[in-house]
């Protein structure tokens, strides 16, 4: 079967698209799938660094499009997880170096050789987003639990819908369960209420993300943090497995106070 092509997008910048792409790609590969993560953020490439493959980048996908090299030459194989590949972006070019039709052709060329193609999209609703989205069938929309991010997600969802992408599913990233518990953060259900879109997972705020970026090793490769588990669950749900949402609160126990609170509430939110 040809690959499923999924664009990871958000509208607002800095909410975790690249982090999500790297971790979901690595997780899918761990599940035995053949995966390529494409850095569609031309000019501001980051996925190579997040995946820890920056030293192995020789060519990029603009080189492929311009026929400077073959596709197989531009693909960087991750030696840590079988089946995981990166197709880097050009750092010294601008988004105008590609057009939607070329992205579609690139994805078509990749499709026969992979199970999943994940496209790490640039922020915004302009050319870069439209290029990345053009090649995709499905979409993952990343947001944080804050008004500006959710608002921009709504805009992007509308655009993805009119482009005919389906399914379009939501990742809520950087949620802080204890702030939600204290009523000081938008809760999962608040966001789902206003966006009316399917949820594919909730990723907690987690220092492990920064450690993983420092080490150049996606969290889902080592699985020693809450966010890693959240991403692994998202990958499973992409594979169609019905994984229950994580109990994030147990990860953020705040000692005695939260223990008493639990006693009274007897209610755990599921993520």
């Amino acid at each position: 079967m040809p690959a499923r092509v999924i664009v990871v997008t958000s509208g607002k910048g800095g909410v975790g698209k690249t982090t999500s792409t790297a971790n979901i790609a690595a997780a899918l590969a761990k599940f035995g799938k053949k995966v390529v993560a494409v850095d569609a953020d031309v000019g501001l490439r980051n996925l190579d660094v997040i995946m820890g493959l920056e030293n192995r980048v020789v060519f990029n996908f603009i080189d492929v499009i311009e026929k400077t090299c073959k596709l197989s030459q531009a693909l960087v194989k991750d030696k840590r997880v079988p089946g995981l590949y990166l197709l880097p972006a050009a750092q010294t070019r601008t988004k105008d170096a590609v057009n939607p039709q070329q992205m579609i052709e690139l994805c078509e060329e990749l499709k026969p050789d992979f199970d999943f193609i994940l496209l790490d999209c640039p922020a915004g609703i302009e050319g870069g987003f439209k290029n990345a989205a053009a090649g995709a069938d499905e979409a993952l929309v990343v947001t944080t639990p804050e008004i500006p991010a959710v608002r921009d997600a709504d805009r992007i969802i509308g655009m993805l819908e009119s482009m005919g992408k389906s399914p379009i599913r939501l990742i809520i990233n950087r949620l802080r369960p204890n702030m939600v518990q204290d009523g000081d953060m938008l809760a999962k259900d608040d966001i789902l209420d206003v966006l009316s879109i399917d949820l594919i997972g909730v990723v907690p705020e987690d220092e492990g993300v920064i450690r993983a970026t420092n080490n150049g090793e996606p969290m889902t490769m080592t699985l020693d943090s809450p966010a890693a588990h959240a991403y692994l669950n998202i990958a499973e749900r992409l594979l169609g497995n019905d994984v229950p949402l994580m109990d994030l609160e147990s990860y953020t126990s705040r000692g005695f106070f939260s223990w008493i609170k639990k006693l009274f509430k007897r209610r755990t939110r599921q993520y």
Partner: protein
Amino acid sequence: MDFLRKLFGGGNDGSGAKAKDRLRIVLIHDRTDISPELLDSLREEIVSVLSKYMEIDNDKIEIDLDRDEKAVALVANIPVLRIKRGNVDYDKV
């Protein structure tokens, strides 16, 4: 009091609830944002449909989106001069 509220988890007065309300209103407005061009073409189509049934006063038509805090409504004020009786000439539309 604040301590008790936190203890019993009734955090509904926190900034999260305020965020939800603000978000809902922002989205109502975002989703109903309409460009002048789109409003013009909407106006033309409404007029052409209505003209099948009635003669309307083209110069005095008002069509706009009316926004308040919580909702948005399409408000149209279209003066009718005469209802067309008998055979409606569908082909003219």
